[in-house]
Structures are given as C-alpha cells and as structure tokens.
C-alpha cells in the first residue's frame, strides 16, 4: 500500500505540466483537470488516514534504495493529518477558482502555479529526507511568490518582493541548519538523524535547532518573524490567500518546525517554553493589530498570525491534551480561515471593493444571503462560539494550559479569543449591514463559488464532532501519538518491510 504515497507528489506535478504544456485557449480543460486531481488527492488522503490507523507507519523507498542511503517518503500520523488538511481544502479552493479566476487573464498559468505549490506542500509533508524537505519547501515557496504577484499591480508586486526576500533568507537559514546537521551526523535521512543523535543536547544540535526555528518560524509567521504575512496574504487572489493562510503556513511552517524540532532533533523539552511564549505573543500581537484594520483581507491576515499562536501554544505545551488541541486547531483553522478568505473574495467579486467602510452602505446581507450566512458561520467558528469547531479546539488548548499550571498563558489565550470575537463583530456589522443607502445592483456570486463556500461551512460545523473521543482517536490520535512519543520516530526505518 505504500505505493500510494508518491501519488501525493506525482499527481499535482503531472497536472501542472499538462496545464502549462497543452492548455492554450480552452481553460475549461484546466478547470476540470485541477478539480479531478485535487478530488482524487482528497480521496487518497482519506484512504491514507485509514492506512495509518491500521498499519502505523508506511514507508515508500524512492527508486528502491534502502532508507539510510536512499530518499524515503514517510506516511505517519502527523503527515497523514496534514495531507488530509491540504488536499481537502485545496479541492474546495480549486472548486472556487473556476468562477473567481475568470476575471484574471491566463487562468491556466494560475492552475499551473497552484498545482506546483500543492505538490511542494504535499512533498514537504510526506518526505522523510531532510534535504528533500528543503527542495519541496523551495518549490512551494517559489510558486507562492509568483502567485502573490499574480495580479501584477503595484501592491501585489511590492508585497511579493518583500515576501520573496524574507522567505528566501529563511530558506537559507534552513539550508545552513541542514548543512550543520549533516556534518554532525553524516546522514540526511530524518529517522536516521534522530537515531544518531539519540536525543543528546549537544551545542551544535541546539545551534542547528535555533537556525531551524528561525527559518521555519518565518514560514509559519510566528511573531518576531511575521512582518511579511499581512502584506503577502491580502495581495494574492482570494483562492491563493485562502491556500496561503490555510495551508502554506501550516505545512511549510508549523509542520516542518514541529517535525524537525520534536522528531528529528529531539529538542522537545528545550523548545517547549520558547514556543509557548512566542505563541502567546503571536496571539496578542496578531489580534490587537487586526482590530484596527479596515481592509477585509488584511484583517483576516492579521488573524492568521493570532490563530497560529494558538496552534503553537498548544503544541509547545507538549502535554497529550495540549498537542491534541493544537492539532485540532490546526485542522479547524485551515477550514475556517480559508472559508473567510473565500468570503472576502466573494465580496470583492460582487462589489469590487474590500474596504469595510466602502461596502458598509450596500446592504449586502439581503443581496448576498449565501455569502452572508457562510461568513457568519466562519466568524463564529474563528471567535470560538460553542456549537462550532473553533470553540472546542480553543477550549482544549486553554484547558490544557490550566491543567499544566500555566495560568498566565491561559489568561492571555482567553483575552485573545474575546478580542477575536470583537473584531469579527466589527467585520460582520460593516460588511453585511442590513440598511442600504446606496442603490447599486449587486448580484450573488456564481454557482461554484457558492458551492465551495457552503461545503466549507458545513465542514466547519461537522468537524466540531471531532471533539468526541470516538472521532478524535481516528482523525487526530495517530498525529498526537507521533508528537507525544517523539523519540519513537528514530525507529521508523524498521517499518520498511512491514507492508506490501
């Protein structure tokens, strides 16, 4: 069954090249192609979750070389959860792009870049080789620089340049860390590195860990490294903002950071407090800066920083409950934040503006009922109102902080949640007001955009059932186990022969 793993990388790459080579005029073909690919990927990722629950770890040897020598693709609990998140959300994003990207020229180039970015993200999550991780990370990053600048207007170009410079410096830090680790252990296989180091707190390992922390921290936009995000995410087209905020900062940032620090270098205890502290600072800084914004998408981008803080806080805590909460919030955030970005795109699509003060007199609540409803659901989810998924994951994170005795962090997390609610009340009040003084003809968005938003909001409601033990054991349990028993990662190379 391990033959399934390379499909996560091969299928989007194939789609990207077919798109760029053969599609010229008829962009319907590229719509169908990317829909098919992302749909089959989400089916495979569901299947991979079953496989992980059944077998534990699956390893694919690229080219038939045995693990310490060759490159491996590893499917364990954490990577299957991330693959599910990435593939599922990217399916809805490509569904949305069918109508939304009509207003841009060269739609097929958009799909090419989007699928390349998807291949990079899946590769980062699935790989078991440290340098291979760097290559896929750069693949996804280069595609995302180009996608941020896709509109080629003044602001887009400026944001993309800023993002590209900062992100490429972060990549260099990561490469430097990889070089140091290679010279110390003489191997690049991640499980083999973990085995060689054996959890020793050598100075060299700690230095490499700090380099990785800076590099992946910038990709995840933890607070001292967050300056690029509020420019880059709003400048992209709405589907790309959704996939940058919902997927890219998670797979390239949080996943790689946690995987390298926890599983490969085994520095879980050392980095626990810095992660928790920076997570809490991210929560507060992000939300305080978000409240003052009047640009719909920029406000959402600041909220991404704040919500990433919750994930980092939960995972950094390192207790079983904290890790569960962090991973649950990761999954939930990718759902509701991509939904919110798609909503802001829908508002921009219909009214031509995303400034809250400009759209406040249009009376959008009655004119765009679907968008209004889905925005309400997503806003309630992100601010943590009981029946929706955001409430449960935030509750677990905060409760685990209290249980571990970190009352200060729990307090700031609660304050952050209240401020999030306040700022989304502002968004809803201004963007979907009932009274309209200005009589402009405004239509609801086309069918596929509605479909994508509606299904994402249904998922927001459904995923709150992951709170129940029965479901969370299946969906989040394997991933939680990967991080909790981080030392076991060094033994996964023994699993090579276990499944045919």
């Amino acid at each position, binding site marked *: 069954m391990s033959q399934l793993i390379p499909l996560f990388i091969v299928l989007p790459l194939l789609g990207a090249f077919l798109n760029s080579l053969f599609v010229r005029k008829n962009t319907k073909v590229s719509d169908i192609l990317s829909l098919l690919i992302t749909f089959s990927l989400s089916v495979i990722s569901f299947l991979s979750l079953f496989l992980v629950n059944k077998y534990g770890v699956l390893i694919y040897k690229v080219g038939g070389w045995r693990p310490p020598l060759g490159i491996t693709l590893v499917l364990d609990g954490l990577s299957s959860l991330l693959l599910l998140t990435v593939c599922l959300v990217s399916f809805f994003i490509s569904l949305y792009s069918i109508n939304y990207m009509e207003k841009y020229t060269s739609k097929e180039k958009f799909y090419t870049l989007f699928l390349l970015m998807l291949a990079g993200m899946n590769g980062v999550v699935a790989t078991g080789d440290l*340098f291979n991780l*760097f*290559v896929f990370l*750069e693949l996804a990053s*280069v595609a995302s*620089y*180009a996608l941020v*600048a896709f509109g*080629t*207007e*003044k*602001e887009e*170009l*400026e*944001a*993309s*340049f*800023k993002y*590209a*410079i900062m992100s*490429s*410096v972060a990549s*260099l830090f990561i*490469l*430097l860390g*990889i*070089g140091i680790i*290679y*010279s110390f252990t003489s191997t*690049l296989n991640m499980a083999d590195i973990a085995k060689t180091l054996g959890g020793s707190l050598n100075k060299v390992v700690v230095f490499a860990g700090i380099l990785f922390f800076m590099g992946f921290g910038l990709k995840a936009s933890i607070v001292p490294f967050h300056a690029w995000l*509020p*420019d880059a995410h709003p*400048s992209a087209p709405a589907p790309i903002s959704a996939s940058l905020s919902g997927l890219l900062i998670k797979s390239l940032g949080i996943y790689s950071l946690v995987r390298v620090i926890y599983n490969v270098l085994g520095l879980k205890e050392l980095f626990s407090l810095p992660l928790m502290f920076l997570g809490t600072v991210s929560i507060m800084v992000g939300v305080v800066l978000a409240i*003052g*914004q009047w640009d719909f998408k*920029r406000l959402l981008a600041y909220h991404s920083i704040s919500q990433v803080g919750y994930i980092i806080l939960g995972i950094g805590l390192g207790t079983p409950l904290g890790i569960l909460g962090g991973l649950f919030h990761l999954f939930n955030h990718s759902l509701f934040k991509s939904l919110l970005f798609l909503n802001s795109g829908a508002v921009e699509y219909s009214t031509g503006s995303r400034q809250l003060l400009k759209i406040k007199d249009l009376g959008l609540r009655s004119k765009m009922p679907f968008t209004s409803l889905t925005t309400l659901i997503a806003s309630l989810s992100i601010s943590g109102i009981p029946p929706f998924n955001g409430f449960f994951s935030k509750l677990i994170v905060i409760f685990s902080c209290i249980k571990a005795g970190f009352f200060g962090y729990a307090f700031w997390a609660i304050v952050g949640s209240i401020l999030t609610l306040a700022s989304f009340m502002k968004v809803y009040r201004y963007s979907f007001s009932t009274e309209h003084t200005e009589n402009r003809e405004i239509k609801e968005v086309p069918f596929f955009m509605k479909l994508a938003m509606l299904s994402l909001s249904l998922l927001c409601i459904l995923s709150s059932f992951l709170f129940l033990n029965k479901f969370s054991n299946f969906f989040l349990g394997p991933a939680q186990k990967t991080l909790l028993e981080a030392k076991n990662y060094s033994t996964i190379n023994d699993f090579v022969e276990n499944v045919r």
Partner: protein
Amino acid sequence: MRVYFLCFILFVVGLYAILRKRNLIKIIIGTIICEYAVNLFLILIAYRKDGRAPIYSPGQEVKNMVDPLPQALVLTSIVIGLAVTALLVGLAIRIYEKYKTFDITKINQLKG
C-alpha cells in the same frame, strides 16, 4: 576553523546588504551573496585535506576521497537559487515599470 569563520562573515555581508541597502538590485545581490556563503559552507563540510575526486573505479582503494554528497546538494541548491534569483529580478523589473524607481523608500504602497 578559520575558513568557516570567513564563510560566516560572507553570510553576514550578504545579510547586511539585504537589511541596509535601499536599491532593489542591491538587495537581490545581497541574497545571492548569502546563498553563495551557504553553498560554500556545504562544500567546506565535504572537503578533506589532499582529498581526491570521489570517483570509484575497479582496482582502486577507497581512500581519502572528498565527501560527494554535499556536492550533489550544492548543485541542487544552486539550481534552486537560480530560480529564486530569476523570479526576484523579474519582480524588480515589473516594480520598476510600475513605480519608475528601484528605491525601496519610494515603493511604499503597503502600510499598517
């Protein structure tokens, strides 16, 4: 050890250019310098004194070769660096078309 230190200084020179220069092209050159410092570091890891090229032929004993793996890594990382640099230069050209300047203090549409 001294040579690693010099390599580190090269990296810091690149970082200085990125942080302090106001011209877009100079910033791009800064990233290139940084990148080359990291590539040089990878090559230095592989270096053995009086080592020979890592080519194995029958009848030859495996002795005193340089480590071939970082050389392969550097090749990959140079190609990636080329892609990033090309994209950055392309962005800089488009920015010049829109703003008519390379000065980053005048390219300030985004605030807050």
